[in-house]
């Protein structure tokens, strides 16, 4: 079965191509069959490959399909199935498939149905390429591909004003990161002459002095590459300062938000760092920087989530915050913890987004929580699965989030980074609080919407609720993969992958009791939920928000307007750039370049108009010209 590894992205690509080329002419059931069947096929093949992979002891399997050589650079079209990509493969195909099924229900009334599935399959293809590639070039192809699909899908409702703008914003902000990523790749090519993971990491692990000498701008080589890659991750995974595209990306259809902006695309940055851990371990300064940014992003986004009214925006900022956790873990060297949280987050965040989609669907498109309330009765399945997701993200035992978040906090404490630990803990508290705020505002209390909306309320069809339940099961039990202590399957799995390069000083180890940390985290989360219940629960409705706004109006306004980050960027960056572009356009392109070309044309025209007077039709004149030429020839011959 392993020899069919290549089939996984090919199947989804075929699905995308078929729907893209013919979908507008095919009947809807056929589009669905292709659009959902392709990821199903990919999932089945993936499961088959994974089965054989684990049967074979989890030894890394590389498959080369094509060898490209250009001059001295040799890059292969090859896949690598090792433990890290195996875990990612499972998450992506499984969650991806469920979301495709859900979409068949959610998007069934859309006119661009075929287009949606085509883009979504294309996204799966790119994401699969990203995680299966065995070198940075294929990862980058996938990286760019998911960025493209993100743009296409965010701007899916292209006939409205905002979605295309949001899509553009996402793509452009990502581009900044991509540029840094490219620079990092160039540095790798310059030093190692290849982009293949195994070659590069082998050399680094064997002899870390390769990457620890001074290189450029006062950084070591490892630091430089690690920093460049991390800037790429900042863009793709929405960390400070490049996170601004993610909340606006909610303009896309909700399943898109679930798949791309929660479970898979935004986690590409984390995957990339874990994959490149050999270099990050050799660059402790940058790794700490990663952790700090991660922690800062986590708490920053969590505070914004406290005051958002759009249910999807709450989840968006929550995603940014949870991604911050993953980077915190990766920066601290707890790579298995980062991947653990990536996996659990994929399940519960996708669940939460799909649940919110169910709510929005029932509300006839309304996303503002202030219009909701009391939906528990009308949407029971949505309610319970959403609550499971909320408990998971809040980190309540025994749901998955508890274990994965705990791993991260333990990593912080174990490394002696108490400030980061406090920040992480506080964020956990905030997370629980704002998640349950959204639960109470949406599902509890009295309905605050209009009469038509009330009549329209209905539970979603099974095609949408079954994926919810499956994801809920996953959100509940995925924690088993990383039980603390000896049973930590993930940790053991990744041991070899995250080998420390030779020649680096040993990492500091503090022994902190796992149990104590777990209890502390649980207590914090529990307290937050209780607080949320006090403020928002039991039919209190919007009174909590109004009290907040009344007591601390400035703070509330600041949070509600997301610290005005977009406005600041607009003033500082966007407007000057736009002015510069206008100058280049009007001043240089239109005047200079077009002017030059037009002048050339005008000169030819004028020359022609003047020159035509030489054709007098008078033969004697022609004879004269002839003669003048002869004289010129004579002169030339004499001289």
């Amino acid at each position, binding site marked *: 079965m392993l020899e069919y590894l290549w089939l996984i992205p090919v199947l989804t690509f075929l699905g995308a191509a078929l729907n893209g080329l013919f979908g507008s002419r095919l009947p809807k059931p056929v589009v669905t069959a292709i659009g959902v069947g392709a990821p199903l096929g990919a999932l089945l093949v993936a499961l088959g490959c994974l089965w054989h992979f684990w049967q074979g002891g989890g030894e890394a399997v590389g498959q080369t399909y094509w060898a490209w050589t250009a001059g001295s650079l040799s890059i292969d079209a090859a896949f690598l199935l090792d433990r890290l990509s195996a875990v990612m493969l499972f998450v992506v195909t499984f969650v991806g498939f469920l979301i495709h099924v859900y979409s068949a229900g959610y998007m069934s009334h859309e006119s661009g149905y075929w287009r949606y599935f085509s883009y979504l399959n294309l996204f799966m293809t790119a994401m699969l390429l990203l995680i299966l590639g065995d070198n940075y070039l294929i990862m980058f192809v996938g990286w760019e591909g998911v960025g493209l699909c993100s743009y296409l899908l965010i701007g899916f409702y292209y006939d409205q004003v905002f979605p295309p703008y949001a899509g553009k914003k996402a793509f452009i902000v990502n581009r900044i990161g991509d540029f840094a990523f490219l620079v990092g790749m160039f540095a790798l090519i310059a030093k190692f002459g290849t982009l293949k993971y195994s070659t590069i990491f082998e050399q680094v692990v064997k002899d870390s002095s390769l990457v620890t000498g001074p290189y450029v701008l006062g950084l070591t080589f490892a630091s430089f590459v690690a920093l460049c890659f991390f800037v790429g991750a900042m863009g793709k995974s929405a960390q400070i300062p490049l996170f601004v595209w993610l909340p606006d990306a909610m303009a896309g259809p909700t399943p898109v938000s679930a798949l791309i902006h929660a479970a898979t695309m935004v986690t590409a940055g984390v995957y990339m760092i874990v994959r490149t851990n050999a270099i990050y371990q050799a660059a402790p300064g940058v790794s700490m920087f990663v952790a700090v940014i991660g922690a800062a992003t986590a708490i920053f986004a969590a505070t914004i989530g406290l005051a958002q009214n759009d249910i999807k925006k709450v989840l968006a900022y929550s995603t940014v915050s949870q991604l911050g956790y993953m980077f915190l873990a990766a920066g601290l060297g707890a790579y298995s913890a980062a991947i653990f949280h990536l996996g659990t987050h994929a399940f519960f965040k996708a669940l939460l987004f799909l649940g919110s989609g169910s709510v929005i669907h029932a509300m006839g498109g309304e996303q503002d929580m202030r219009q909701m309330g009391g939906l528990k009765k009308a949407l029971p399945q949505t309610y319970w699965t959403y609550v499971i997701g909320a408990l998971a993200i809040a980190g309540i035992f025994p749901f998955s989030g508890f274990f994965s978040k705990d791993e991260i906090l333990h990593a912080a404490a174990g490394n002696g980074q108490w400030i980061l630990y406090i920040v992480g803990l506080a964020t956990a508290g905030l997370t629980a609080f704002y998640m349950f705020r959204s639960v109470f505002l949406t599902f509890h209390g009295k309905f605050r919407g209009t009469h038509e909306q009330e009549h329209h309320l209905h539970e979603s069809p099974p095609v949408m609720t079954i994926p919810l339940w499956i994801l809920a099961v996953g959100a509940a039990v995925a924690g088993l993969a990383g039980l603390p202590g000896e049973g930590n399957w993930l940790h053991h799995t990744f041991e070899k992958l995250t080998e420390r390069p030779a020649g680096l000083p040993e990492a500091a180890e503090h022994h902190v009791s796992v149990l104590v940390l777990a209890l502390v985290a649980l207590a914090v989360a529990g307290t937050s939920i209780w607080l949320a219940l006090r403020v928002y629960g039991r039919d209190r409705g919007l009174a909590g928000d109004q009290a907040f706004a009344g007591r601390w109006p400035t703070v509330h306004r600041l949070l509600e307007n997301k610290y005005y980050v977009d406005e600041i960027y607009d003033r500082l960056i966007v407007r000057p750039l736009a002015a510069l572009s206008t100058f280049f356009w009007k001043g240089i392109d239109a005047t200079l370049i077009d002017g030059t070309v037009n002048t050339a044309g005008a000169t030819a025209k004028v020359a022609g108009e003047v020159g035509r007077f030489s054709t007098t039709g008078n033969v004697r004149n022609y*004879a004269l010209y002839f003669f003048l030429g002869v004289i010129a020839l004579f002169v030339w011959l004499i001289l």
Partner: protein
Amino acid sequence: MTVPISWYLILAAVLFAIGTVGALTRRNGISIFLSIEVMLNAANLTLIAYARQFESHAGQVVVFFVMAVAAAEAAVGLALFIAVFRQRHTIDLNRINLLRW
């Protein structure tokens, strides 16, 4: 005293110049042709002078060819004049200028 070659060449130059002025100045087509014949003769004279100077027959052979070409040219040119004259009833070159701008 023998005539130095440069005298022949000067003579040829003079004839050529006279022929040129005539070819450029006259309005009558026939007269232009006559002037051209004068120029051709000047060229022939030069060629023969050099043939003598370098003791080669090549110059004379070329003159032979030049004469043949001159004959052909005169024939065709005059035929053209006749054809034009039939149309326009004039061979005043100032009047034959349809290809004006």
